[in-house]
């Protein structure tokens, strides 16, 4: 039961980050590595402010905005300077590593004790129930706003850019600006997840971003493999499910006694496996149809 609750609370947080990654990954078809830097950036900004006594919600919001800024930088480099998307992400994430240390002044900040976090604002609840409550509320808000945004004039244009850039330009859409907007929202959400994660775990750490993109992609792929062809809003909801399932798998693996030091190897192997599932499914289907065909042809010959 504990395992379920902790997986749920962490999975909800991961899904905010996975939704952020989904925007660049599926709308722009870019695996944006900036995620690995903006996640700890959100945590760093928030932790620093909370320690200084800033209202935790304000601190969380500034985490989100800092992430948007990181997205702006990556988006600018990718669109205006034409640097390949993968490199852009690596550049920003490398730079952010120093920036995060600068912000925190040390490699980690503890948020335990008397400081006010969004968790301690809900004093009558256990940490995991508070985390679940906050996760659900924030997710509902995020999904609702995203669905509305991507149906506005600008949002529709942004989707068109990801889908067919040439057509977008012919219809007067500035593709660069749309891409930058998506980069910003995406990294803002990833940083928001980092910010909440720091408050729930009780610390921000400069290395907490390692594996961000792998976790997020795994959640997305699980969602896509389990339920295919969904509308945008429903897809976001299933990503939440994907993230929780993924966290549950990890928790079970840890319980089996896998050394936590080996966890990232496990993340990578799992994602490689998930990414190959659609192909495997196709191959298996093909093979079945082929065998059926062979059997039918043989039966036909016998007649």
């Amino acid at each position, binding site marked *: 039961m504990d395992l379920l609750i902790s997986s749920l609370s962490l999975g909800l947080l991961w899904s905010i980050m996975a939704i952020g990654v989904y925007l660049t990954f599926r709308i722009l078809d870019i695996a944006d590595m900036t995620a690995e830097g903006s996640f700890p950036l959100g945590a760093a900004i928030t932790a620093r402010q909370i320690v200084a006594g800033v209202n935790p919600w304000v601190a969380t919001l500034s985490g989100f905005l800092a992430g948007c800024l990181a997205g702006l930088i990556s988006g600018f480099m990718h669109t205006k300077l034409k640097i390949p998307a993968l490199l852009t992400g690596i550049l920003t994430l490398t730079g952010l590593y120093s920036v995060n240390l600068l912000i925190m002044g040390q490699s980690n900040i503890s948020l335990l004790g008397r400081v006010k976090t969004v968790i301690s604002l809900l004093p009558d609840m256990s940490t995991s129930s508070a985390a679940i409550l906050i996760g659900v509320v924030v997710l509902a808000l995020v999904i609702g706003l995203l669905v509305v945004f991507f149906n506005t004039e600008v949002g529709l244009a942004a989707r*068109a850019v990801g889908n067919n850039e040439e057509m977008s330009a012919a219809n007067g859409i*500035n593709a660069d600006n749309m891409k930058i907007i998506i980069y910003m929202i995406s990294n803002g959400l990833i940083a928001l997840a980092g910010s909440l994660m720091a408050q729930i775990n009780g610390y921000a750490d400069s290395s907490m971003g390692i594996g961000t993109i792998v976790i997020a992609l795994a959640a997305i792929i699980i969602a896509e493999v389990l339920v295919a062809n969904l509308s945008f809003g429903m897809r976001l909801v299933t990503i939440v499910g994907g993230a929780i399932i993924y966290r549950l798998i990890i928790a079970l693996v840890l319980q089996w006694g896998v050394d936590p030091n080996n966890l990232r190897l496990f993340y990578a192997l799992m994602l490689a496996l998930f990414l190959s599932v659609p192909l495997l499914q196709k191959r298996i289907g093909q093979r079945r149809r082929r065998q059926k065909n062979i059997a039918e042809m043989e039966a036909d010959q016998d007649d």
Partner: protein
Amino acid sequence: MTNALELRKLHQFFNQGTVNERHVLKGIDLKLAPGEFVAVIGGNGAGKSTLLNSIAGSLPVDQGQIKIEGEDVTYETVAKRARLIGRVFQDPQMGTAPLLTVEENLSLALLRGQKRNCWSFGVKKKQRQFLQEQLALLNLGLEDRLSAEIGLLSGGQRQAITLLMATLQNPALLLLDEHTAALDPQTSQIVMTLTAQLVAEKQLTTLMITHNMADALKFGNRLIMLDQGQIAIDVAGAEKAQLTVPDLLALFKHKSGQDLTDDRVLLS
């Protein structure tokens, strides 16, 4: 009266400054009066696509000037000058966003040339009926398929919708880049007829590249033949109306001193 399109001394070079340099457009001067429907023909490498891409903005201009309705657009991006231009590509996949619905695609086109904001929805309910009426004009039964993803439609259907999208906002200039070349003959004729109908109804100034000489003679009120980056033939009005394929070939031989030997042009 201002010209709908004015090209002055337009030059394009490929690989400029290298041994592979090619002078693709050699000082094109062209004026289109409002409402003119011009068919552009020419062999492979004559510079037809280069000309169209230069006007649309997808190819930066090396030398010369481009004005649309009197506005100098020479150095504007594709997206910027889209306020004045409707465009249909040769590849039916290119003019629409496959994962968006028919309605979403049309709604995007409705906002061409306008500022897009975050406080109104991209697809507006009150426009639905208008869009349905427009689709009904195509006579392809698409008016009931507003919520279908465009990627699920056939090439001909997509091309017809692209044509509609390009003309919804009455562009100052309609560019058609061999827009029926990738379709089967029957669909090609349907789309061509639709084109003529839309152009006539909205009195659009149109520049249409085609490989099909019969189409070039049948449609439009002016015909231009490009040869080696220059305008070799330019006929309009009654003179154009009386022209036949053999006339055109003779004219070409007379002007350029050689036979028109491009199979793709002759056969179609």
